[in-house]
């Protein structure tokens, strides 16, 4: 078809977590600019399967930008060159004919490669389990709007809650810091009345788990905020810091 593109892919191939990986170059010919990036990889994989070769492994699920499953570090940026979208929402029209595209997995000690481009992000789950929840008693369903929450607070909490745990913040950060993710998960609860009873226990537990997982330090480069597909704000990190210092240095009854 006319208008289709011929691309060269430099893809990271790695058998498993322990084996050393390497880049392998593939030709991706006759790619429609209307395909999504993942559909392009599907086409490449179909051709690999036909040749009885091992297809490229990559994470994906909903393919509509909400599940947080897709990843891929494309041409030096997580989720590719466009702002505020995930890889599944990236289309091949963002590239040009004849381009060489480098595709790498998220790289962090805390995100070990499972195979090729798929990494293990369960470190995020463990951070969530350390305190990213609200303990509630079972019982009758409370009335809606029983607790009044100002609109600005509700909006801000919602913005923090849009985090899909994709890990682009860690991938983008030159220090592989998980601060944006952790602070968004802390903020979404710290801003709301339901999150208050466990607010200071939560921040300490989640930060401790974050450190335990081996993520790096936040040096305020702001790369995470720019690369986040959900545009989570850097303000969350500063809010996390205030809560953390508060817990550790000012509220002795709250120390974990």
């Amino acid at each position, binding site marked *: 078809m006319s208008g289709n593109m011929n691309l060269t892919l430099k893809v990271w191939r790695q058998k498993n977590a322990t084996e050393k990986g390497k880049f392998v170059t593939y030709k991706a010919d006759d790619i429609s600019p209307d395909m999504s990036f993942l559909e392009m990889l599907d086409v490449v994989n179909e051709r690999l399967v036909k040749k009885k070769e091992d297809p490229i492994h990559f994470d994906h699920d909903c393919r509509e930008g909400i599940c947080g499953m897709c990843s891929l570090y494309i041409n*030096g940026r997580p989720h590719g060159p466009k702002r505020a979208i995930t890889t599944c929402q990236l289309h091949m029209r963002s590239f040009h004919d004849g381009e060489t595209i480098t595709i790498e997995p998220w790289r962090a000690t805390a995100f070990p490669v499972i195979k090729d481009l798929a990494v293990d992000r369960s470190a995020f789950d463990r951070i969530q389990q350390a305190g990213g929840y609200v303990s509630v008693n079972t019982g009758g369903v409370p009335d809606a709007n029983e607790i009044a929450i100002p609109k600005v607070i509700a909006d801000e909490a919602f913005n923090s809650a849009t985090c899909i745990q994709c890990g682009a913040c860690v991938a983008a950060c030159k220090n592989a810091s998980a601060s944006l993710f952790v602070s968004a998960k802390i903020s979404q609860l710290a801003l709301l009345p339901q999150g208050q009873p466990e607010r200071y226990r939560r921040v300490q537990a989640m930060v401790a788990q974050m450190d335990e997982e081996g993520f790096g330090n936040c040096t305020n480069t*702001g790369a995470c905020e720019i690369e986040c597909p959900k545009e989570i704000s*850097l303000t969350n990190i*500063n809010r996390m810091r205030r809560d953390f210092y508060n817990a550790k240095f000012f509220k002795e009854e709250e120390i974990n």
Partner: protein
Amino acid sequence: MGSLSKGFSSTLGKKLIMGLTGLFLSLFLVIHLIGNLQLFNDDGGKAFNEYSYFMTHFLPIKIVSYALYLSIILHAVYAVIITMRNNKARPVGYAQVNGAANSTWSSRNMGILGTVILVFIVIHMKTFWAEYHWGGLPYVQYEMSLQNPEVVRVTQLPFDGNPLVHTKFVDVQNQTEVVVAKDLYFVVQQAFQQEWYVILYVISMIVLGFHLYHGFQSGFQTLGFDHVKYKPIIDFVGLWVFSIIIPAVFALMPIYMYFAH
């Protein structure tokens, strides 16, 4: 105590030490700059030498200066600790990184910028601070007429092994005020007669500007200060005062000394 040390040993706590020491060092730069403006006085270095004496002999300032040395050391040591953890957090790097797309060059190169500044501080302190404290510095005598204090007579006193002391007295008979001081101004003059030294200083100040372009506003964020009302003010001051004006005026000093003598 346990919780305090736990607080400071976390990734957030270590960065807090970086932020606190960094902002303290930034504040010092302002004081250092204002003091060093005496170099621009055309008085044979009288104001500068008197200022140097005051800074090294006034007890509260001496105490703050030890806090300053400690801050420099802590800032550098914690930078190494933090960087080591960061390197461990990503042992396999990316083949291709488009850092310019999401962050400033300064923010990505704080380590190398800081290392250059540390080397500069060592050279700087060796040349002036160590010389002033332990070097065999010459003394200089200033005589000012009491009627017309603008008229200053400068006499170099040769260093003869007998340690002189800083003195200031009024000679009533000759109607003059006499000041005898260690001549640090002379050392500054001598140092900045060398072209490479002037170049070293100018380059170091450019590096300092880039370091503070990220460092100043980052320090406030690390402390948790982030608000729509004052974030723009912090950014403005960080850019214009700390990464442009202060390094530029510092850089002017060696250039001025080079051309004025």
